[in-house]
């Protein structure tokens, strides 16, 4: 309400040049911002000579990465690549399955007990979304040990927030008429969900799942950094051992995987919606 008034006023107000006082204030603001920024850069280690000199070490590193060690791929990288792929699929499925009840709780119009389940659903979405999948990866590696399994769990839990949020929004946007019709015909709340809500969100549900898979491919390529399986582990090992040509081969595989999954996901999402 308040905001509406404000925009309304600013629309009516005639344009006038800024008063000297106002522009002084503005420039002072810019100046303070710039000063803070410089302070931040200084404390992060940005110094003029360091910035000027970043090119040599970077090009030196790229030089040592070239040419990529393609021969390393068939012998050592097939298994981790497949593992990354499997992790992305299973992590997506787990996340989607877990997010269905959460979305049901967190959609205002269908939540079973509004004062109780709605906040629970919202909390689960916010909580799982706020932590990066690498942090989830670390937690599950601590809990169940190294390997792809904690990776799948991390992707799944992180997926609750992502899929659950989008799905809950879709559910809130459905056509209430169909829900009402089923209720009027004597459907119980389970039948209302199954025949009134679910059919309306199926296409979006499939679209969101495919989108989530595409994100999971990216995430599962780095989960190995914390020991949760996939290509990330190999990448970290080769970098630690200064085997840069092998590292570049792995990065190339990641780029190819990500590009393929992105285009598959775009095509599939185009079909559904």
């Amino acid at each position, binding site marked *: 309400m308040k905001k509406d008034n404000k925009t309304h006023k600013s629309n009516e107000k005639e344009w006038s040049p800024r008063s000297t006082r106002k522009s002084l204030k503005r420039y002072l603001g810019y100046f303070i911002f710039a000063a803070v920024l410089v302070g931040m*850069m200084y404390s*992060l280690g940005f110094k003029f000579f360091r910035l000027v000199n970043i090119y040599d070490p970077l090009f030196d590193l790229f030089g040592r990465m070239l040419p990529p060690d393609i021969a390393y791929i068939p012998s050592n990288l097939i298994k981790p690549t497949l593992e990354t792929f499997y992790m992305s699929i299973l992590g997506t499925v787990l996340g989607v399955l877990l997010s269905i009840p959460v979305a049901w709780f967190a959609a205002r119009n269908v939540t079973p007990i509004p004062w109780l389940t709605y906040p629970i659903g919202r909390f689960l979405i916010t909580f799982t979304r706020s932590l990066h999948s690498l942090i989830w990866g670390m937690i599950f590696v601590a809990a*169940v040990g190294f390997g792809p399994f904690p990776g*799948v769990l991390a992707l799944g839990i992180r997926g609750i927030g992502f899929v659950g949020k989008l799905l809950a929004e879709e559910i809130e946007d459905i056509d209430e008429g169909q829900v009402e019709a089923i209720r009027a015909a004597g459907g119980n709340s389970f039948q209302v969900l199954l025949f009134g809500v679910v059919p309306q969100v199926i296409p979006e549900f499939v679209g969101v799942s495919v989108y989530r898979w595409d994100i999971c491919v990216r995430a599962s390529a780095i989960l190995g950094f914390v020991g949760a399986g996939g290509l990330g582990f190999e990448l970290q090992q080769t970098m630690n051992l200064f085997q840069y040509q092998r590292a570049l081969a792995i990065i190339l595989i990641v780029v190819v995987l990500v590009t393929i999954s992105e285009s598959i996901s775009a095509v599939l999402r185009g079909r559904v919606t």
Partner: protein
Amino acid sequence: MHKWEPKSKKEKYTQRALTFAAIALVFWSALAIDIQWSTMGGLSALGSVIASFFPPDISYVPSLLQPAWETFEMAVVGTLAAIVMAVPVALISAKNITPSITIAYPIGRAIIVVSRSVHEIIWALIFVAALGLGPFAGTLALGFRSIGFLGKLLAEEIEGIDEGQIEAMRACGANQAQIILFAVLPQIKPRIIGLTIYRWDINFRMSTVLGIVGAGGIGYEIQSAMQRFRYSQAASVILVILVLVAIGEVVSARLREQVT
């Protein structure tokens, strides 16, 4: 809303085939993935590890304030550096105002693709390998990755601007630089600010994990706490991260509301 029609046979079969393929893929992955169940302690071990995160070691929080502030600084500086570099990239990779469609346009697009195709963490790993450990490498990684994101969205925005203003400037005899300065940039200015804030929010989340590869910020703290099995300390790091992310979300929502 288009009129509802029954699905054609072909459509129905492709849909079934795709569904079947998806289910088969899931089962195949579940069977093929190499999980060593024997090495896992089962549910009770999982429960006891999760339990050891509680209660979080609150006394550890004061020592996390400095890394938390560093995380914030990394996100701010990385994002601003990225927007400064992304505007020229966007200018050359927008079809309507690129100086040359044969040379500059592909270069701009290539920068966007390269920057976007590799994950932040991998960029951070590369920058750490080249420039050494610390927030300097992490900030550059954030900035470099953000160029692609910002450049792509800004280029799309530029392609959608009102051509009339450009024409008007050109008719007055303005050169290319003047056209960009007075006809293009004012039109995309709100979008530049909005996207910068949005990207800052993303970068803030990202910078919480860059420390895992040694690129500065609070990620290093959680990594070292976990490696030393100090789970209650790790829990307080997680709490700090949750607060940081919440602050980032609120600030970015407020700022974007003000801009638009």
